[in-house]
């Protein structure tokens, strides 16, 4: 069946901000879908609230709406788009299957409420009935039983009593799975009544339909997943099988997974395949990709269907990268009528997409967790996903792939120096935690048997045997020396995937020099990796697409070309502080330089991303971003004698950490040089530069001992901001109010050394923070955007909402910022992008004082946001600057005018999104360490409305009436009076704690008093739980109060009451509420906004 010519316009719904359970993989799938549909000549309309995505680039759709993903806004988009269609035009369709659970739920909502019918919009990709059958646990269970498949014993409950009754029938432990939540949100395993009540209550609350499934425990069973595609002609194919290294009980997103399945006989595999096909047909997924998950009892092979997702998913992104089969792209084509046999396989070009990829390598995915960012969070892995990102590696064997993936994780810990507690060995093997892999290796070092480890972990002995082989081989290294090992033995180690670093560690060769010694020995002995192709067909057919991985094997099949080339180093696994924004920049570098005629080469190890789509660059190396691997790629590419340049400033901190060593190894870095990057990081040198330029910065110093740190604190005055060098996302950064906290920090919080001292700065209280992004070609500077933070200085810039253009900074102060930016960019010889952070503090006379907080001569987190607001693709322009082009050539008008890039008549507010709901018990207070996982953008003519939209997109629904609870520190009491009055005028009632109430009553307001948590009952928490409070404004009082107020913040998160922790943000919220009270739902397409410039 060919393309459906009756369709004219297609609305694609994205997945919104990056959150745990829904990450960059939906940018990848959405981007693929948009590209495919546009190529097919459809009019593509996209809505997504996340500005950091590639999919929201204005050239990927005909109209791109960066708007809240909720009913009202999407209905408005549909209304406008339907109206725009001329009479007699084709159909208007909605593709809901590439935007994760968010898009699917929204589509169901729009269908159920009659919006789709009203505007005559057809759901394509998955029909309503199929979505419901797959998502509704009861319907799903019935469907499975109908086709003769087993499911775990279970019952749906919507109250605690039914849950308890059923659980006691099943016997503990039981699983709790809330309906219609993503990433297993709110799920858990209960071993007793008490736990059941707790988890069930949370699950019922999180489920949009207040429903949970109580399920028989199949903990310890083997877990599998099949990626399936079906077309309108009922052709069904399996793209990939995935086997979990971690047995049942750990969410797939938190499991180490392996493709293809390794321990199934053909009969078992085919039974699973037959079942997957039957599930697709029974559920009625007519077109597109789905996954079906299975559990298999390792003792007798009993197979149970766990669930299916009638849409592309995290694992379909993984499967696409693992096989070279672009599931989302093909799914989009199937949705518009094509059948699989009509679509060519991109990789072979000669054979059709209607086949099942076969692979001649092994793929391993390892999740990345960041519990260190959330003190108090439970790091036990269970049915609710907790990881923030993942890495994938490809090797010819499981061992090689596993070890490559392991080193891709960038744990920051020294290889082989993981902190292992022998007394906890059994516990760490039995209970899944992020460190389990390390403990398994430790167990084998301690001569435990595979059988014993398998009994404790319930992992498949085959996987464990592989780990044991690696462990024993590594342990044997220490019995050799670099002189005695010989080529054959060293090659064997490399074939096991052992890094130069691990080998160096065993030989006690220290630091970067030690690793270098191993590398040189290896090269001397002629032991180099070769590069092989991911080709969907195990070499049966010729491959046209250079999607490469390294392995220690015989034949290299990817000779470099002699074209001028640029290697772009990606940002590795998604993590807090280094997310999709950097992938956006890397992709843009590739797009721009491809247009300029370079061969672009991407290196990355994150399977969720657009950068690791084989379509993005001329060549893709799916490799760890570790010096050893990057150098091997460089040497390989440079061996043709072609000119090669490497971009390190786009992948966040990951490539920057390699920059100096790459340069030392003779690798040409294009753009800002590593020396400048180091200069900006080096306290002393940078301080001197600022002195020379007469640019003020907060007083500060560096310390490598407790005594030094205390002396500096004394000298510059408290509070102080303390942090380690060379980190992104404010890792381990704190505000210390006294000497004691500084001493504690130095003793406990971080490691430091003479080349990586702790940085201590005076903390500017009550200052406005500003981010500036600028472009520089070493001669000229163009200021791209001055973003005013809505939260005060001291809250990590990534966790602060900000607005473009600045809304309350005087022009002359802006001019000071501009002048500082220009001076610094030129002084640092920036070629490319630079990001500066300033703090503006008012003195008693009302004069502004501008301080530089930091300068980052690299792409920043805000680049995509500023690009979307200004319509100028900053990362593309900057990439071109790196290859020698100039601002005079690329942005002549903007350069001549000397003005910042134009944002037109609208306000663009960026707001962060936090993972609090995933980490029970964690304090939700904001500080200098970044905690947000993603961001959204709100666009509107006025600041208030833009802020309200951003808040809405971030999941904070600002109330338009009700009661505000104020509890502010002494410092804020004066300023609160005007603000509170504003809320009263907006029609809100006020509740406040003692001190705050006194001051508000003094100003003539009517205030209801409430106790602080420690004081008595009813307290603020009682009111929150009693749904008496709709908005919380709580500015914390120094460090001690953090703990007292924590229960309030937690209760608010659970009750989903928006909590604001700064007066500045409360002010913005008031503006937003005022805008919302007018009940305006206005949407803007980016293309229209950009056209008005």
């Amino acid at each position, binding site marked *: 069946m060919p393309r459906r010519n009756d369709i004219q316009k297609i609305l694609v719904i994205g997945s919104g901000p990056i959150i745990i359970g829904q990450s960059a993989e939906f940018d990848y799938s959405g981007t693929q879908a948009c590209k495919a549909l546009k190529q097919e000549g459809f009019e593509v309309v996209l809505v997504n609230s996340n500005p950091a995505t590639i999919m929201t680039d204005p050239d990927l759709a005909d109209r791109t709406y960066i708007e809240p993903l909720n009913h009202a806004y999407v209905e408005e988009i549909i209304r406008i788009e339907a109206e725009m269609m001329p009479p007699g035009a084709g159909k208007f369709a909605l593709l809901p299957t590439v935007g994760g659970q968010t898009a699917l739920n929204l589509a169901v909502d729009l269908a159920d409420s009659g919006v789709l019918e009203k505007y005559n919009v057809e759901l394509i990709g998955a029909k309503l009935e199929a979505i419901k059958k797959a998502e509704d646990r009861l319907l799903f269970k019935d469907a499975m039983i109908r*086709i*003769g*498949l087993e499911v775990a014993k279970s019952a749906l409950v919507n109250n605690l009593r039914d849950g308890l009754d059923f659980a006691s029938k099943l016997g503990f432990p039981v699983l709790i799975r809330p309906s219609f939540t993503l990433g297993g949100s709110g799920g858990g395993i209960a071993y007793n009544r008490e736990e059941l009540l707790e988890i069930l209550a949370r699950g019922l609350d999180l489920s949009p339909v207040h429903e949970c499934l109580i399920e028989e425990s199949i903990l310890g069973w083997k877990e599998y997943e099949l990626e399936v595609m079906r077309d309108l*002609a*009922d*052709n069904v194919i399996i793209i990939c*099988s995935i086997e979990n290294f971690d047995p049942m009980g750990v969410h797939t997103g938190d499991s180490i997974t392996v493709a*293809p*399945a*390794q*321990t*199934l*006989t*053909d*009969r*078992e*595999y*085919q*039974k699973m*395949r*037959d*079942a997957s*096909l*039957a599930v697709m047909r029974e559920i009625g997924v007519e077109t597109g990709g789905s996954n079906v998950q299975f559990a298999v009892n390792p*003792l*007798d*092979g009993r197979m149970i269907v766990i669930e299916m997702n009638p849409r592309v998913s995290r694992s379909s992104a993984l499967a696409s990268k693992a096989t070279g089969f672009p599931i989302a792209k093909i799914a989009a084509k199937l949705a518009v009528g094509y059948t*699989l*046999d009509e679509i060519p396989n991109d990789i072979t070009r*000669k*054979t*059709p997409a*209607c*086949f*099942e*990829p*076969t*692979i*001649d*390598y*092994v793929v391993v995915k390892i999740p990345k967790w960041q519990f260190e960012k959330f003190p108090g969070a439970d790091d036990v892995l269970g049915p609710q996903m907790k990881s923030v990102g993942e890495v994938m590696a490809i090797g*010819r*064997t*499981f061992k090689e792939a596993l070890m490559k993936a392991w080193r891709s994780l960038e744990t920051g810990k020294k290889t082989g120096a993981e902190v292992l507690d022998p007394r906890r060995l059994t516990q760490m093997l039995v209970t899944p935690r992020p460190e389990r892999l390390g403990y398994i290796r430790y167990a084998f070092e301690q001569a435990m048997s*595979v059988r014993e480890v398998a009994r404790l972990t319930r992992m*498949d*002995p*085959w996987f464990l*045997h592989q780990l044991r082989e690696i462990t024993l081989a590594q342990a044997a290294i220490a019995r050799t020396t670099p002189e005695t090992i010989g080529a054959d033995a060293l090659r064997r180690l490399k074939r096991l995937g052992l890094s130069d670093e691990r080998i160096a560690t065993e030989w006690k060769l220290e630091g970067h020099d030690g690793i270098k010694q191993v590398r040189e020995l290896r090269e001397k002995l002629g032991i180099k990796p070769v590069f*092989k192709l991911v080709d969907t*067909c*195990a*070499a*049966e*057919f*010729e491959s046209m697409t250079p999607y490469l991985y390294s392995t220690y*094997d*015989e*034949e290299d*099949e990817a000779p470099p070309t002699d074209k001028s080339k640029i290697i772009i180093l990606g940002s590795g696994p998604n993590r807090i502080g280094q997310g999709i924004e950097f992938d956006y920049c890397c992709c843009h570098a590739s797009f721009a330089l491809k247009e300029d005629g370079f061969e672009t080469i991407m290196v990355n190890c994150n399977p969720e991303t657009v950068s690791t789509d084989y379509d993005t660059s001329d060549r893709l190396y799916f490799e760890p971003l570790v010096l050893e691997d990057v150098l091997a790629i460089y040497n390989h590419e440079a061996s043709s004698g072609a000119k090669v340049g490497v971009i390190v400033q786009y992948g966040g901190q990951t490539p920057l950490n390699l920059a100096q060593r790459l340069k030392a190894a003779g690798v040409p870095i294009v753009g800002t040089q590593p020396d400048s990057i180091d200069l900006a990081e080096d306290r002393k040198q940078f301080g001197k530069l600022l002195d020379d330029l007469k640019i003020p910065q907060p007083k500060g110093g560096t310390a490598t001992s407790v005594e030094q740190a205390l002396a500096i604190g004394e000298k510059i005055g408290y509070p102080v901001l303390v942090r380690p060098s060379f980190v992104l996302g404010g890792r381990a950064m704190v505000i210390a109010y006294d000497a004691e906290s500084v001493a504690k920090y130095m003793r406990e919080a971080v490691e430091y050394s003479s080349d990586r001292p702790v940085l201590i700065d005076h903390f500017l209280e009550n200052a406005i923070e500003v981010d500036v992004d600028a472009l520089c070609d070493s001669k000229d500077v163009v200021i791209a955007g001055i973003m005013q933070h809505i939260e005060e200085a001291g809250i990590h810039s990534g966790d602060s909402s900000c607005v473009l253009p600045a809304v309350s900074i005087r022009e002359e102060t802006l001019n000071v910022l501009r002048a500082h930016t220009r001076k610094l960019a030129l002084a640092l010889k920036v070629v490319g992008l630079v990001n500066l952070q300033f703090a503006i503090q008012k003195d008693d006379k009302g004069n502004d004082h501008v301080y530089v907080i930091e300068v980052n001569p690299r792409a920043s987190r805000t680049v995509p946001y500023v690009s979307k607001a200004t319509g100028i693709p900053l990362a593309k322009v900057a990439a071109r600057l790196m290859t020698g082009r100039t601002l005079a050539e690329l942005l002549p008008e903007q350069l001549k005018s000397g003005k910042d890039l134009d944002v037109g008549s609208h306000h663009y507010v960026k707001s962060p999104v936090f993972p609090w709901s995933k980490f029970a018990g964690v304090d939700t207070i904001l500080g200098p360490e970044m905690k947000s996982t993603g961001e959204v953008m709100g666009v509107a003519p006025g600041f208030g409305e833009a802020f309200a939209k951003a808040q809405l997109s971030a999941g904070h629904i600002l109330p338009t009436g009700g009661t505000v609870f104020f509890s502010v520190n002494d410092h804020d009491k004066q300023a609160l009076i005007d603000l509170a009055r504003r809320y009263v005028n907006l029609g809100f009632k006020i509740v406040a704690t003692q001190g705050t109430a006194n001051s508000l009553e003094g100003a003539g307001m009517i205030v209801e008093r409430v106790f602080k948590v420690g004081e008595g009952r009813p307290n603020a928490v009682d009111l929150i739980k009693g749904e008496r409070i709709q908005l919380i404004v709580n500015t914390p009082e120094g460090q001690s109060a953090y703990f007292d107020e924590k229960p309030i913040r937690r209760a608010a998160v659970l009750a989903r009451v928006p909590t604001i922790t700064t007066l500045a943000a409360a002010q913005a919220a008031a503006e937003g509420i005022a805008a919302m009270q007018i009940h305006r739902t206005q949407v803007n397409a980016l293309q229209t906004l950009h056209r008005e410039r």
Partner: protein
Amino acid sequence: MQAILALEDGRIFRGLGYGHPGECQGEVVFNTSLTGYQEIATDPSYAGQIVVLTNPQIGNYGTNRADNEAAKPYIEGLIVREFSPIASNWRSEQVTDEYMERYQVPVLAEIDTRALVRHLRTFGAMRGVISTSVSDVDALVAKARAIPKMVGTDLAKVVSTPTIYTMTPEDPRAQLEDPLLSSVLDQTAGERAWRLKVVAYDFGIKLNILRMLCRENCDVTVVPAQTSADDVLALKPDGVFLSNGPGDPEPVDYAVKSIRQMLGRVPIFGICLGHQLTGLALGGKTYKLKFGHHGGNHPVKNYRTGKVEITAHNHNFAVDPDSINPSEVELTHVDLNDNTLEGLRHKSLPLFSVQYHPEAAPGPHDSHYLFRDFRKMMEGWKG
């Protein structure tokens, strides 16, 4: 144990030897299936061939008696990237290494199998020798060149059963009770009205074909390749099955003759070599493919339904579609990768055949329906 592969064109691969220490020789072909190494090893169609598996991890789930496709392995030798020294699966009865040693199959591991596959893809399937005596490379290459070529070789009569035997649905070898074989797509199995009698020509028949026929409630009498048509018809079968098998179909002229004699007198279903022989019997020609089809992921379009089946393949030869008389014979299946003819059906007489393996084992079950079609054809013929 060091081991070596020497190809007739002089290319050498050095690796480690497992399984049977010693030497083997044959035509080197690659198979791209991800699962089912035991079924592949025991498929008689691989007689005379050394098989390189593209899945780099082989041996992981061990071996068991139920998964055998014949009483013993028929491959001459096995080449893998990594060979598992342990077996991990509830069905496993013997570690793969021991199994290969027991049946004297040499295994070459730790070579760059992808490089070998690319070599075979580029230059075509070629003869080779695996040896654990690795010193005299030139002698091994010479030995490879001396191996009889596949073209013109009748291997069917070599692997065929010497005597007649039967398999009924009640036979434990039919494994009717195995829950792994009762596919969810096949829920009506066991409800067939009456039992039919099939005579199966054994040119190298796979056990799963017999199991599938038993599942269709057939008693199967397996006869040697050279059994005459008269002898077969004397058994009064409801249908005749022509099995898969190794080697070149052309020298198997005795079977071609028998098929011609049976045509129109009894329903006939052929698979693989059986299909090629059917093609020859209908006046067509066969030819050798460059490196053959060996794998479990081939898209085959069924012209009658318009749907694509993902199928298991194992053939080095194929029937030339242009050599088939279109007024008599309908072409029913084609491989979408390279347009190889994969199935045909006589327009007026009860005969159909497919080039690929609907019995799978290993491979997808998409084409199981062909056994049901065969049954229906027999039922219809019987009236």
